[in-house]
């Protein structure tokens, strides 16, 4: 009896811990950022007109005059940036999974295309953005491509590795029962690449945001990426620092949300896939 309840409560506990721990992480991360922020201002003795403190930003966003207007300004920019980053994130990850599967199934394709991918990745995106703008215009397509490219490459490498790490015995067993390459990829490789997928997703979050802002700065002229550039020429350092703070918080939150989903997903997938390890 006692063992039965134990087995029933254990996953529930694990689930709760998996969801709560990332939330706790967000709080810890943000506290650390704020402490570093204050220390940085103290050590470098920066001019308060240019270097804003967390208190200034709180005042700007919540307690000061026009706080409501400031909040709506920051949040409208953030909404745009999150939309741009979201499309890039999804597109980049999906492309990485697709290409990784092709790479694993067809070695010759990998040998032919991987060097090309590395070359493309070696060109600084700042330099490539005008070209991308020329091809894809100045809309959502351009931001998706730029932001997606940043997500794509690390995800591709991690996913290829994840797919390769699938159990050889399981693959052999499937083959013995007459399964083709595609079935093995679907039934054996993809499930065992779930941890790799979540690792790439977590790494991809800040990358997607950076890519979205780069695209906004150089191409579309919308969102926080462009607003922050404009701030420095209009001496609006309150808005600049507030944007950085909000973006950091959102990035940390998104990272940890994915971490929470990961814990839940791995609790379901990981033990079933590789019982031995």
């Amino acid at each position: 009896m006692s063992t039965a309840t134990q087995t029933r409560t254990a996953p529930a506990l694990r689930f709760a811990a998996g969801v709560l721990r990332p939330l706790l992480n967000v709080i810890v991360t943000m506290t650390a950022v704020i402490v570093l922020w204050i220390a940085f201002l103290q050590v470098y003795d920066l001019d308060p007109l240019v270097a804003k403190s967390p208190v200034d930003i709180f005042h700007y966003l919540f307690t000061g005059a026009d706080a409501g207007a400031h909040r709506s300004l920051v949040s409208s920019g953030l909404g745009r940036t999150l939309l741009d980053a979201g499309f890039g994130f999804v597109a980049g990850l999906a492309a990485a999974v697709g290409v990784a599967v092709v790479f694993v199934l067809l070695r010759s394709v990998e040998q032919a295309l991987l060097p090309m991918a590395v070359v493309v990745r070696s060109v600084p995106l700042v330099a490539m953005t005008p070209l991308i703008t020329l091809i894809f215009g100045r809309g959502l397509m351009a931001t998706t491509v730029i932001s997606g490219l940043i997500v794509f490459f690390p995800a591709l490498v991690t996913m290829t590795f994840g797919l390769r790490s699938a159990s050889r015995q399981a693959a052999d067993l499937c083959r013995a029962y007459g399964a083709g390459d595609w079935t093995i990829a679907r039934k054996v490789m993809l499930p065992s690449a779930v941890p790799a997928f979540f690792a790439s997703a977590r790494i991809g979050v800040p990358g997607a945001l950076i890519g979205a802002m780069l695209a906004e700065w150089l191409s579309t002229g919308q969102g926080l990426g462009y607003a922050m550039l404009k701030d420095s020429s209009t001496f609006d350092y309150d808005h600049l620092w507030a944007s950085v703070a909000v973006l950091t918080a959102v990035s940390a939150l998104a990272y940890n949300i994915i971490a929470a989903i990961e814990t839940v997903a791995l609790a379901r997938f990981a033990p079933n896939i590789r019982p031995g390890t």
Partner: protein
Amino acid sequence: MTRSTNSDGRAFAAATDRRLFLRRGLQLGGAALLGGPLLAACGGSDSSSSASSPTASGSKSFGELTLRLSWIKNVEFAGSYIADSKGYYTDEGFSKVTLIGGGPSATPMETDVVTKKALVAISAPDITGAAVAKGAPLKIIGAQYQKNPFCIMSMAKAPIAKPEDMYGKKIGVQAGNESVWAAYIKATGLDASKITKVPVQFDPLPLTQGTVDGWFSFVTNEPNALRLKGFKVATMLLADTGYPLVSETYCVRQDTIDKQRDLLKAFLRAEIKGWKANIADPALGAKLAAETYGKGLGLTTEEQTLESKDESELMVSADTKKNGLFMVTQALIDENIKTLKYGGLDITAAKLFDLSILEEVYKENPSLI
């Protein structure tokens, strides 16, 4: 292949140019020798003050001066290059002058002055005004350009000659110039919804390729660059279509005005002398920009000379002929304040401009006018 021959050609041109420069320099030197007594004779009152002030300031020694420029080191700052290379700054008591270049990705000028990285910056009233409105303790003590240098450049075969021509067209505007653009739209009463604004950087390639129809830029810079490449372009000055705003203004901290007035006066005297020399010979500053100060930026003396001439037109007006370079009349200040209000900047003239230092300079040295 073409590239290497091209650079060879350029090196050759530079070498011949340098030789030419030496010869011209000698000629100029001769002219200066001849003109020396004449100039001294002209400025009767100056000869006494200039005889006393160098010794006075020489003994004072203001130390090093840092001047933050509003753009890359091109001919836009010709007067400062001349003042530096001819020793006008050192004559006034500065041990050394550091010119800090700007550019599309540099820290804003006002930030450098507020954080004391530079003592003086060259900026514009709209940018300085925005900083002052946010509480920065800054003032404008003089303006190089009496006319606003911004223009809408277009290809000559589809010219934009008046503001309404922009309706239904795509205009490339840089992020740093957004505030000027927004103020211009309001000042001229244009309907912004009928114009497509496109974010661009500073290379006017999109205009020549037709992805935009108009290009926001300094009339001195990109139009001349494109003309020398063989493109036919048209320009429409904002200043000629209802946008009176001085530019390339000297921006300093209020406490510099309060505590180091003599230093600022010495600085302004050196700048006036430098700019007068450039207006007299626009090629002088162009050579310094292309071959010395802006070396490595790929500037050519030919293109820089064109810019230099355009600059003189923006700097010299009937008023400056009467009151001296950099001076802004009260009437023009009032127009400026009105223009700034269109851009959403409500600021009084007294909070933004302080031309009393420049007034004193000209009162003490009337020959500088």
